[in-house]
């Protein structure tokens, strides 16, 4: 295959990626967009097996590719790991998986750059060396950072911001060290400096994500996703592949925009997300709150309250996802509608662990689209709402976001359920939400708590309601 044809096919793959992102931006074309993206990636991968690239000295090479057995074997192994993981994962664990996939992508880019670096000849231009070093650094940061976000989301480690004394100086120091060693590697071209650089970059990735609070983790995943895109673009420059430059840059640019949009949906600046933990004042007086009385009710109490309501707003959160209660909640809503009660779902843009998490979950239960109300739509209606049922959500309805300057979620727009006549919380325990902040609303006299697994509680409420 001639270089011209090869590049032309690469361009076709690049066009597929543009169409894929465009498609993914609209609900109607999203699924097709994803398939077009997969098609582009397949074309780009398959064509490489039929193109004998000239080697570094410009001599022709022959097909099949060297190490073909290794290449095909490794692809088979990757497929055997990736596909079952993607197929079997539960909707609740989707965000972690995306974080993990992003991490391994960053790791792959870093490894490619390291191998490329090892085989750099004397003829390598400074620009190529810089691009290679850039890929190693950012790829490693993306890899270790994504692993930490995975651990946080999987709750294998604390979801609260991890801050230690002098933390910001350690981070700044690591960053300076990374930059310094980068300069050394570019100048000296040695394997040892490169390994030191990779280690420092991995450390920086960890330090960079540790102070980020649980609720902000999705924003960081999106940012690291954009980072990985840029490393792919840099690899494309080093490997002389226009297709990789286009694909990587597209992901880098769209990922940056997406990160900003997600941060805006949560009402915070990107800077605040990344460095908020250093500036926020430590939480005080939350210990005193724990002993205060709360009003807990039985499923029958909840059913009676609902039965005589005229308007009910259901506010789902991560607890709904954990309990897989989306079908039960729909059953409850259908029952209430049959009784002539006005029912709406109040969807906070970042309820759950990722933006849009609740929409996906409720869509799975075939909840009609018209019943889903976005935050701006539903907030003015709470004053006319008799009962707001908060199912496994906490931070997204926490009034502290509006009233307590300095708390980690201050400034995030919330669902103002406190304005409705009654609030029912379905909770597993008194444990605070993902962001780790006490919720004053739980102690409000108009709040009733129903403890237990969301699905079990809802099932009991449904049967109690049927008996009325």
């Amino acid at each position, binding site marked *: 295959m001639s270089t011209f044809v090869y590049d032309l096919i690469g361009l076709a793959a690049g066009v597929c990626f543009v169409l894929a992102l465009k498609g993914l*931006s609209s609900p109607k074309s999203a*699924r097709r967009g994803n398939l077009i993206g997969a098609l582009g*990636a397949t074309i780009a*991968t398959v064509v490489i097996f039929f193109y004998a690239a000239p080697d570094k000295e410009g001599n022709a090479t022959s097909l099949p590719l060297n190490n073909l057995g290794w290449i095909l074997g490794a692809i088979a192994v990757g497929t055997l790991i990736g596909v079952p993981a993607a197929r079997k994962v539960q909707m609740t664990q989707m965000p972690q998986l995306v974080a993990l996939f992003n991490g*391994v992508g960053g790791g*792959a880019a870093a490894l490619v750059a390291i*191998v490329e670096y090892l085989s750099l000849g004397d003829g390598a231009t400074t620009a190529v060396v810089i691009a290679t070093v850039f890929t190693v650094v950012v790829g490693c940061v993306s890899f270790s950072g994504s692993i930490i976000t995975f651990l946080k989301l999987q709750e294998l480690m604390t979801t609260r911001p991890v801050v230690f004394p002098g933390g910001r100086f350690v981070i700044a120091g690591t960053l300076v060290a990374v930059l310094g060693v980068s300069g050394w590697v570019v100048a000296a071209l040695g394997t040892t400096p490169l390994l030191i650089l990779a280690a420092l970059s991995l450390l920086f990735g960890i330090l960079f994500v540790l102070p980020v609070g649980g609720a902000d983790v999705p924003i960081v995943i999106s940012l690291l996703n954009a980072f990985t895109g840029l490393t792919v673009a840099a690899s494309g420059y080093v490997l002389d592949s226009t297709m990789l430059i286009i694909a990587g840059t597209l*992901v880098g640019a769209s990922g*940056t925009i997406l990160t900003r949009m997600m941060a805006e949906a949560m009402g915070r600046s990107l800077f605040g997300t990344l460095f908020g933990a250093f500036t926020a004042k430590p939480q005080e007086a939350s210990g005193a709150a724990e002993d205060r009385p709360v009003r807990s009710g039985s499923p029958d109490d909840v059913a009676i309250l609902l039965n005589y309501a005229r308007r009910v707003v259901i506010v789902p959160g991560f607890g709904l996802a954990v309990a897989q209660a989306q079908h039960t909640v729909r059953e409850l809503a259908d029952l209430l509608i049959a009784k002539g009660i006005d029912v709406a779902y109040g969807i906070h843009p970042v309820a759950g662990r990722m933006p*849009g998490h609740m929409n996906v979950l409720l869509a799975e239960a075939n909840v009609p689209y018209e019943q889903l109300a976005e935050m701006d739509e539903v907030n003015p209606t709470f004053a006319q709402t008799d009962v707001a049922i908060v199912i496994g959500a906490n931070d997204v309805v926490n009034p502290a976001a509006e009233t307590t300057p300095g708390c980690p979620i201050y400034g995030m727009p919330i669902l103002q359920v406190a304005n409705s006549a009654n609030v029912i919380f379905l909770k597993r325990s008194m444990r605070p939400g993902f962001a780790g902040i006490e919720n004053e609303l739980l102690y409000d006299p108009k709040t009733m708590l129903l403890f237990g697994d969301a699905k079990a509680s809802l099932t009991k409420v449904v049967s109690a309601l049927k008996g009325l």
Partner: protein
Amino acid sequence: MEPIAIISIFVLAVFVGFEVVSKVSSTLHTPLMSGANAIHGVILVGAIIVTSHSETNLELGLSVAAIVLATINMIGGFVVTDRMLEMFKGKKTEKKEAK
């Protein structure tokens, strides 16, 4: 390739990337991130290229590992995005039937 050609491609791709996702409802943020994530899995192509150039065992080991990771990223990423979007689709077909 000429540096100016590369810079042109880069700058234009940045603008295209900005433009195509400039208006997305928050509902689609997660699938979009996941889809973009799968796209950067094409680093697989880079991994295959360096594997075919590998001469030492160290290079071969690292580049084969890169292929495994990139494949997981790319194929897993597209499959998981499709699963997310499948649920949106189910909702729409039902809506059509209702009308």
